[in-house]
């Protein structure tokens, strides 16, 4: 379990290059560093649900990112995204 404030990195993984898939981790966040805001509970993995497969339950976190670490021209001050534990690694 990741605590609020924990630094994390979104996995630098590109499943869409390997064939049919359904992923809820946006393209713009892959490989990016962020900070855990809080856990939002746990939910069945949508990557399996989308194919009507048995879906293990995963912890879901709200994670905050610095917009200008993603796009130098970004106009906001913070980006917060729901991400499953399977996409997060310690940073």
């Amino acid at each position, binding site marked *: 379990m990741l605590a609020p404030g924990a630094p994390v990195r979104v996995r630098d993984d*590109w499943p*869409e*290059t390997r064939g049919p898939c*359904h992923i809820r981790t946006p*393209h713009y966040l*892959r490989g990016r*560093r962020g900070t855990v805001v809080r856990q939002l509970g746990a939910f069945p993995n949508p990557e399996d*649900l*989308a194919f009507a497969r048995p879906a293990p339950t995963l912890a879901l976190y709200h994670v905050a990112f610095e917009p200008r*670490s993603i796009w130098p021209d970004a106009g906001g001050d913070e980006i917060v995204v729901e991400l499953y534990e399977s996409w997060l690694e310690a940073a």
Partner: protein
Amino acid sequence: MTPSEPTDTSERPRAHHDMGGVPKFLCEPIDTGAHALTPFDREVDAIRGILGAKGVMSVDELRRGIEAIPEAEYARLSYYQRWIRSIADNLLARGVISDAELRAALEQA
């Protein structure tokens, strides 16, 4: 440690529904007006709701089916036109309806 330097991952292959920050839409103005839903839209929405409530098809399967629509078609179809296509795709994939049944139903429709 300083935050990671911005690295350019924008050239990585990207699914067309995955639109956050994508340059080709950055100059697109936003149509902020109200657009009433049509009877078609509302019926498709209701069918999706019933299929979800009855466990016939999840919202995740709906999304997968929408994302599977080729990019040019995705851009051409309206929001709920994508939905009905995904619903049909999923009902066939799950064996809820067969090709032959759908073909016959389309001929009568």
